[in-house]
């Protein structure tokens, strides 16, 4: 059974204070690892897909990296508008037919001005 564990559960930073969010995963075979951002009362918004260890992707102040056991979402010089819950999800290659993602519980990030 696929498992995704995110840490910390909550993180409060000052504006401009860089940090990293962690996503540890266990899958039989990784098809893809996904990062989403979710604002209160909204659906998740896609950020990145990572496919293999060593891969990195960047978007504005965010950079996602992937190893064989975990992924990090690095936030550089965050702004208050970066406040949200960040969700990590995996898709395995079990081929059983179910094409659903397995999500972690998310990291609730607050950036204070």
């Amino acid at each position, binding site marked *: 059974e696929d498992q995704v564990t995110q840490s910390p559960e909550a993180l409060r930073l000052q504006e401009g204070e860089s940090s990293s969010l962690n996503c540890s995963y266990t899958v039989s075979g990784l098809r893809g690892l996904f990062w989403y951002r979710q604002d209160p009362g909204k*659906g*998740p918004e*896609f950020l990145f897909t990572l496919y293999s260890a060593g891969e990195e992707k960047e978007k504005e102040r965010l950079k996602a990296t992937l190893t064989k056991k975990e992924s990090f979402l690095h936030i550089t010089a965050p702004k208050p508008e970066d406040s949200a819950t960040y*969700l990590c999800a995996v898709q395995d290659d079990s081929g059983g037919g*179910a*094409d659903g993602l397995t999500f972690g519980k998310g990291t609730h990030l607050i950036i204070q001005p």
Partner: protein
Amino acid sequence: DAGVTQSPTHLIKTRGQHVTLRCSPISGHKSVSWYQQVLGQGPQFIFQYYEKEERGRGNFPDRFSARQFPNYSSELNVNALLLGDSALYLCASSPLWRSYNSPLHFGNGTRLTVT
């Protein structure tokens, strides 16, 4: 372009009742997936439909069912509602069956409260 639209946005039902939630995917997207998100948790996979056929099912009881229509819109039905069914129900669409090479686009969900 319009994103994924879900209706209704909020719903209050009583235990034992039945509920139908609706989803319209992004134009051109043929795959629709349903997820349940309980407060404080990540979304949990319920169903995936592609070209009107069920392609995947998560670990949910038979009280949950879904279907996809010729225009690719979808309905999620839940029978005999329990208090534990209270959650945000998310619909997501993608152009392809395998979403690892075409990420899911989520709607803003239907907030279901069961009393």
